[in-house]
């Protein structure tokens, strides 16, 4: 090229060094993700995954371990990794295929159950199993092999997941089905994210005729009445009981047994409106005290004035009563809450539940929400799944220094004595000794763990020595 003016010799000019851009992982380094219980609370880098093909590239060069996470609805630390890198999947939420004949939906793992319902309900399909909130991801629901009110008939979530893809940190992509890579299939269902990233999954939806639920609510007093109602209504699809664990004496273990079935007559099938209420700020620590909780429990019990109610209601209040207020966990203030959730085998279900209820009453700690239900005997497909046939009991405790943690330890030990187990998705307190007794297969499971992945939960319950922080570097 000829210039109409003379260019100065380049060595007379001082240029800054040429810019070289290295491909760095897109660290946001911003606000740590909180778990639902807001306890414990750790800092971590957060990387957002937008496309399946971006994993594992987004974790190249990461040195302190990785954990895929969804909507953070687990209570304790299964979805946390102190000082590590969380790979958030919620921007990866596309629908990939839907077969209206079989109801099989294929979607990316970051899609929420709420988004699935928005799509499927107008088309006459519902989730085969749903937890008590729809704000969980497909990947998170598989990774904790979540259960719903229909466990007796349907088993847990994994029972309805015919296939998914697992991506390992070395880039290997494994199609997992009950017959293809069956070990990784079983290890990943209920595998707490530790076996790799679930990039997409299939879910077998079930047909419904209407949004409505045929609902029945029956008051009961004591565990024996609970068992009697369970037997009498053995063939009802959805069952769960709310239990008052504040009252003593005549009202000890009173509650409301709630039964539901999808209405059979054709009805409205539109998608749900967006929730408008968001719990605005952290409540002060004193807001939830024994008095307010007792008042709540009494109100709830008598909200149902008659001892037996039969009605129809929308599926939203039936399945997701708590979703009406987004971030209701802020009600517990900054200190947060812990949940205690056990499953006990039939042999000890009644005795163990009563003993633990008494232990809770003795501690003076009140709980807002205590849920009692039964697990059926449909076997879970996951190696580390929580459900076992018998009672399932769950309640939330506010964190009161000096009271909550010792109580959790005693209850954990009692669960062990009664031959039950605790639910990792809800746990912040299990000791290694308790965990290894609840899940003796953990060593077999550990063989399928991805070497780059770990969680604060895993390090807590099997010990950092086993996970070996040194193997947490992603080197490819």
């Amino acid at each position, binding site marked *: 090229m000829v210039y109409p003016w003379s260019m100065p010799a380049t060595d007379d000019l001082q240029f*800054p060094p*040429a*810019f070289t*851009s290295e491909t760095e992982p*897109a*660290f*946001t380094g*911003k*606000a740590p993700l909180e778990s639902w219980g807001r306890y414990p609370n750790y800092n971590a880098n957060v990387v*957002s995954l*937008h*496309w*399946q*093909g971006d994993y594992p590239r987004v974790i190249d060069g990461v040195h302190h371990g990785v954990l895929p996470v969804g909507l953070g609805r687990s209570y304790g630390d299964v979805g946390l990794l102190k000082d590590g890198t969380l790979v958030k999947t919620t*921007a990866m939420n*596309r*629908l*990939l*295929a*839907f077969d*209206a*004949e079989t109801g099989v939906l294929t979607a*990316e793992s970051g899609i929420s159950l709420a988004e699935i319902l928005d*799509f499927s309900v*107008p*088309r006459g399909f519902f989730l085969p199993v749903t937890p008590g909130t729809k704000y969980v991801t497909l990947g998170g629901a598989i990774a904790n092999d979540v259960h719903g009110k229909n466990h007796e008939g349907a088993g847990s979530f994994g029972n309805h997941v015919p296939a998914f893809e697992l991506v390992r940190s070395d880039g290997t992509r494994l199609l997992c089905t009950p017959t293809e890579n069956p070990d990784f299939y079983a290890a990943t269902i209920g595998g707490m994210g530790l076996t790799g990233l679930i990039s997409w999954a299939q879910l077998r939806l079930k047909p419904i005729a209407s949004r409505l639920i045929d609902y029945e609510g029956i008051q009961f007093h004591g565990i024996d009445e609970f068992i009697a109602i369970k037997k009498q209504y053995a063939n009802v699809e959805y069952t769960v009981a709310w239990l008052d664990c504040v009252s003593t004496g005549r009202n000890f273990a009173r509650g409301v047994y709630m039964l539901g079935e999808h209405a059979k007559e054709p009805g409205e099938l539109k998608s749900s409106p967006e929730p408008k209420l968001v719990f605005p700020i952290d409540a002060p620590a004193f807001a939830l005290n024994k008095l307010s909780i007792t008042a709540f429990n009494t109100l709830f019990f008598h909200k149902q004035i008659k001892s037996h109610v039969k009605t129809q209601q929308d599926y939203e209040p039936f399945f997701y009563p708590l979703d009406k207020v987004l971030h209701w966990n802020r009600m517990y203030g900054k200190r947060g809450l812990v949940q205690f959730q056990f499953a006990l085998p039939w042999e000890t279900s009644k005795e163990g539940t009563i003993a633990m209820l008494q232990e809770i009453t003795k501690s003076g700690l009140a709980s807002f929400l205590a849920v009692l239900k039964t697990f059926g005997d449909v076997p879970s497909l996951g190696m580390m799944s929580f459900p076992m046939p018998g009672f399932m009991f769950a309640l939330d405790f506010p964190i009161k220094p000096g009271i909550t943690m010792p109580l959790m330890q005693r209850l954990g030990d009692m669960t062990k004595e009664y031959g039950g187990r605790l639910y990792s998705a809800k746990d912040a307190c299990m000791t290694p000794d308790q965990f290894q007794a609840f899940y003796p297969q953990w060593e077999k499971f550990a063989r399928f763990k991805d070497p780059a992945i770990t969680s604060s939960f895993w390090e807590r319950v099997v010990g950092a020595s086993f996970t070996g922080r040194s193997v947490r570097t992603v080197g490819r």
Partner: protein
Amino acid sequence: MSAGKASTAHTPKRILVLGATSGIAEACIRSWAERGDMLYLVGRTASKVGVVVDDARVRGAAFVDSAVADLDDTAAHPQLLAHAINSLGGLDVAFVAMGTMGEQAQSERSFDAADAVLHNNFIAPASLLTWLANYCAQRHTGTLAVISSVAGERGRKSNYVYGSAKAGLTAFLSGLRNRIDREGVRVLTILPGPVKTAMTESMKGSEKFADVNKVAATIVGAIDKGGDVLYVPGIWKIIMGVIKLIPESVFKKLSLGAE
């Protein structure tokens, strides 16, 4: 089979999306698909285009076709656009959503980097719009909806290269509108404030940016209704109004940061 919702008699629109893998575009595509529109989706990364197409099909789009093309390649535009319009059997809406922010620091040190940002955000859209405008003007119909940015409203030290490309694009659109409005062709300039997408992920405070689905709903509504210039979220009309009033002598001392 068609998994379409029992939709209330919506005449399907033929919509061409250029930059269909953009977070904002994808959210718009979902609502168009849900109501059964016809879509032609163009992006430059095959694996991304593939899943966006799948999602649109599953949600019930009446028709989906796609092309993988680097839209920086302006020489390929006429052929690409002809192919897309033929495939759709005409054109009701062209939505230009492509863009890249680039690294301001890199653009300052190397003009090659700045050139790429200017080309991607101004030259390439200008080329697309030239062809599209002529096609539509000839037929006296169509809507050209283009994402520019509030970053083009005033140059700032933190992103003036990107911002100047968007300023150019905004001016181009305003001139184009004045040329072809009388031909029955609508030009919608979309000026988003900061939106939570992959583009802004690593920016400070991005968790407070506007929700992409809400932004998309506003854009989809504006494309249906008509209008010339859309600030989204609407508050940015006021914010930019104020920012544009600040005298340069004061503005240069403020050194405003993020977009």
